[in-house]
């Protein structure tokens, strides 16, 4: 039975319960999720909020590629990848990955792989705003890394 690959880039608040319910299925014994939230600090500086921007159409394409890769590597049933754009205040959710599988190891590994892949391959950017009023900064998931992006 073909599984769901649900992807979205949205300015709406993300609904964990809805996404988890979406990936559930009668033959699934396991659902794993990852939820990225806005932290109140970064390297000692107080963060008041994050603002996200996306190349929306390409981001969703890249997410579909990630779904296909997850299906190649793991025995999964349904996949949901959702990313929020616009302002995301402290404690709120910016990204959710939810994956279902018959047995737990597959969804656990798939979610881990999936969030790493999102952070590497999906054209979305966050800008950090600080309490001390200093200049807001565009962040990089891979500061100082050797770039592997283009190998894909």
């Amino acid at each position, binding site marked *: 039975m073909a599984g769901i690959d649900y992807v979205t880039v949205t300015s709406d608040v993300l609904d964990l319960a809805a996404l988890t319910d979406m990936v559930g299925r009668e033959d699934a014994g396991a659902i794993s999720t990852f939820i990225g939230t806005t932290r109140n600090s970064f390297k000692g500086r107080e963060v008041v909020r994050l603002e996200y921007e996306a190349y929306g159409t390409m981001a969703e394409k890249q997410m579909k590629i990630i779904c296909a890769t997850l299906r190649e590597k793991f025995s999964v049933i349904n996949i949901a990848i959702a990313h929020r754009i616009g302002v995301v205040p402290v404690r709120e959710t910016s990204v959710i990955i939810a994956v279902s599988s018959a047995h737990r190891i597959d969804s656990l590994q798939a979610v881990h792989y999936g969030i790493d892949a999102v952070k590497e391959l999906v054209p*979305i950017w966050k800008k950090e705003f600080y309490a001390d009023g200093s200049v807001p900064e565009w*962040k990089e998931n891979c500061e100082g890394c050797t770039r592997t992006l*283009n190998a894909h």
Partner: protein
Amino acid sequence: MADTINAQVLFFARSRELAGVSSVKLQVPVETTPKELLSLISAAYPALLPLVDSAAIAVNEEFKSSATALTLSSGDVVAVIPPISGG
């Protein structure tokens, strides 16, 4: 002179802020590479120079490796992709 086309170039995040625009039309070579495109785009928008070494290029919503030989067509969309920070 080699053939050129009028490509749509998109800017996002820091590249959009530095360029001061989200989208422009630019004459670019039909036969090119991402590295060459970044040089050409930053010649048109010198404020983008700090990003030349860290940005990637996407053509029609696909990442292209720095030295990949590209053949562009009319209507192609080139995006300047700063280092990503989603997730």
